[in-house]
């Protein structure tokens, strides 16, 4: 049986890469060291495969067929197509079809209904954390694309259930495999909206406190009230909620919180306690 060896969260704001020369040396250093610590923890867990939960920022899906959630089952995924992200060293990333197909089958048996993709482009949401965390060689990647971008969205409660389902699928996977889960995105930010650029630090700090405390129902209640006010990009905290569900709501240890205006995003990094 496979083993869940670690659950992680990291922001993925493009400006971490695109705006690097506009950030202060202290800001860049703080982000770099947060990613490095994240990478240290992931490497220490030695995952063979990493399930990465991230939205699709319009590189794969369009509104002619926009899935609430999609699982990538391909043998290979394409690297990030963003023209500003050519520094990413991998043109393709290896997938893990047996684990991914097991996730899909388990989901369908349990009344979840993902879309399935044999070929995904993994955008900066997947690849900024992989790259900045310095994972090389990369573990096999099972992408889970959660719609945080175009409303309406899956409920936070459902995202939590999805995380629990992922943990169940890992536990029941027939094969010796060390599996990690990485949720990317968030915290507060706003893109293409009238409050673009606003970072809601009060929301972020309370949100992080809720994730730390390991009380899932309090977290879901808090998000139900406050998430919609933290900017459209804050919707990506849904991915963190899924990771929380995978960790059985045990709470996480914060690595860093960096609310950097030139990144537009309240950047957070954490790893869950697996008890």
């Amino acid at each position, binding site marked *: 049986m496979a083993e869940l060896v670690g659950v992680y969260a990291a922001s993925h704001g493009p400006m971490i890469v695109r705006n690097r020369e506009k950030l202060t040396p202290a800001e860049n250093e703080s982000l770099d060291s947060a990613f490095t610590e994240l990478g240290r923890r992931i490497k220490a867990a030695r995952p063979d495969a990493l399930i990465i939960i991230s939205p699709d920022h319009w590189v794969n899906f369009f509104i002619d067929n926009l899935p609430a959630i999609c699982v990538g089952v391909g043998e290979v995924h394409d690297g990030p197509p963003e023209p500003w992200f050519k520094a990413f060293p991998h043109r393709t990333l290896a997938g893990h079809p047996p684990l991914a197909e097991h996730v899909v089958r388990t989901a369908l048996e349990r009344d979840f209904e993902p879309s399935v993709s044999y070929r995904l482009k993994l955008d900066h949401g997947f690849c900024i954390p992989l790259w900045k965390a310095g994972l090389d060689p990369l573990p096999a990647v099972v992408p889970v694309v959660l719609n945080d971008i175009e409303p309406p969205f899956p409920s936070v409660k459902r995202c939590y259930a999805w995380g629990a389902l992922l943990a169940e699928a890992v536990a029941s996977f027939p094969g010796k495999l060390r599996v990690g889960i990485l949720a990317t995105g968030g915290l507060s930010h706003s893109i*293409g909206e009238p409050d673009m650029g606003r970072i809601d630090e009060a929301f972020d700090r309370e949100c992080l406190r809720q994730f730390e405390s390991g009380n899932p129902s309090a977290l879901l209640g808090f998000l139900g009230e406050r*998430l919609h*006010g933290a900017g459209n990009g804050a919707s990506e905290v849904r991915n963190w909620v899924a990771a929380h569900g995978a960790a059985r709501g045990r709470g996480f240890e914060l690595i860093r919180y960096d609310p950097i205006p030139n990144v537009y995003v309240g950047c957070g990094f954490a790893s869950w306690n697996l008890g």
Partner: protein
Amino acid sequence: MRDYWLSKLFFDLQDPPLADAYRADRKSVLARYPLKAEVRAAVEADDVAALYRLVNPYLLRFYFLMAGMPEEEFLRRIRATGATDTKRAARG
């Protein structure tokens, strides 16, 4: 409710060669999309507020960046749209 063809235009413009073509000759690219007259007019006028109501905000932001509007100018215009709290709430 999104405007389908406007969304498709912005989505397609993520392709760098099409973006080049668009910057070189906006009209000939626009002609390939069956946009409603008022939507086309809003595109031609760089009307951020009008387009904001018809398309995903990530695509909106991408479009003006691609089209060459300075980030500061886009921020000024999008902030001036002053959408209601109700609308923001609906976008969760």
